[in-house]
């Protein structure tokens, strides 16, 4: 272990601000990238489901020829 106490660990020899800023921003951007990827997947699947539902409706719709 390179540090003697938890306070030492957080202060990072006086460079705490820069070290923690780097780590936080980096991991945050990676997490945002993951969330964006999953969101996009959900959006595409929703779009495909809509398309399937529409096809079903077209298939099941009663013929209108008799009405018109």
């Amino acid at each position: 272990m390179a540090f003697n106490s938890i306070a030492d660990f957080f202060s990072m020899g006086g460079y705490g601000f820069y070290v923690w800023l780097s780590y936080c921003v980096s991991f945050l951007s990676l997490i945002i990238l993951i969330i964006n990827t999953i969101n996009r997947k959900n959006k595409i699947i929703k779009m495909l489901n809509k398309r399937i539902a529409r096809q079903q409706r077209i298939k099941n719709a009663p013929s209108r020829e008799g009405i018109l």
Partner: protein
Amino acid sequence: MWKCLHPYAKPEKSYQLAGKLLPWFIIFSAITFIVGTVWGLLFAPADYQQGDSFRIIYIHVPAAMMAMAAYSSMAMAAFVALVWQIRLAEITVIATAPVGAVFTFIALFTGAAWGKPMWGAWWVWDARLTSELILLFIYLGIIALYNAFSDKVLAGRAASILTLVGVINLPIIHYSVVWWNTLHQGATISKFEKPSMAIEMLWPLIIMIIAFAAFLGTLMLMRFRNEILARESHRPWVLRLIETDDAQRLQKDK
């Protein structure tokens, strides 16, 4: 010998293969990320000159390396996409670009946060920093160009051409510290020489490089699958796949 690869030129087969590989990539990158970060932050000794601020290297160097690795794979895919007109290669280009852009941003940001306490400036217009910034702009340009066309065939081709043009920036980034005098120091890890880093500091760095590579692989697989679904949304196999997925989910809910 290429015959065995032919089925994977079919989007359906690639989609399934990517889906099979994905969980392993997720597990592997999660483990390496945790081990590398804990080792780098807690157990690696402080540097004799820079003290604890050097721990930023465990994000900075892997992100910069993988940003360039991502670009190289995009360039290869773009070349294949243009010459053989394989749609999956185009999809690979566009699936990788956002990951590379985020890695480049991380490399630039951590570099600035490291430069301020050590060099005395957040930013200096030296050849290494400037060429890395250009890499970010190229990544953003590729993404913007792809999204600018509503015709995705045309969009894919335009993005591939821009990717190939931008590949010239890679050797410039790599050799900038050798060709010109810069504030940025030379490479710590290079292929042919002994790394100029103590071994107990080097191990976590290697693990973090592997972690970033695995993360790149994970996100590439996820985005690759997304883009296949989006581009093939009119094909019967995609609709069939979604229908069976839905059916399975309903079964589970019951």
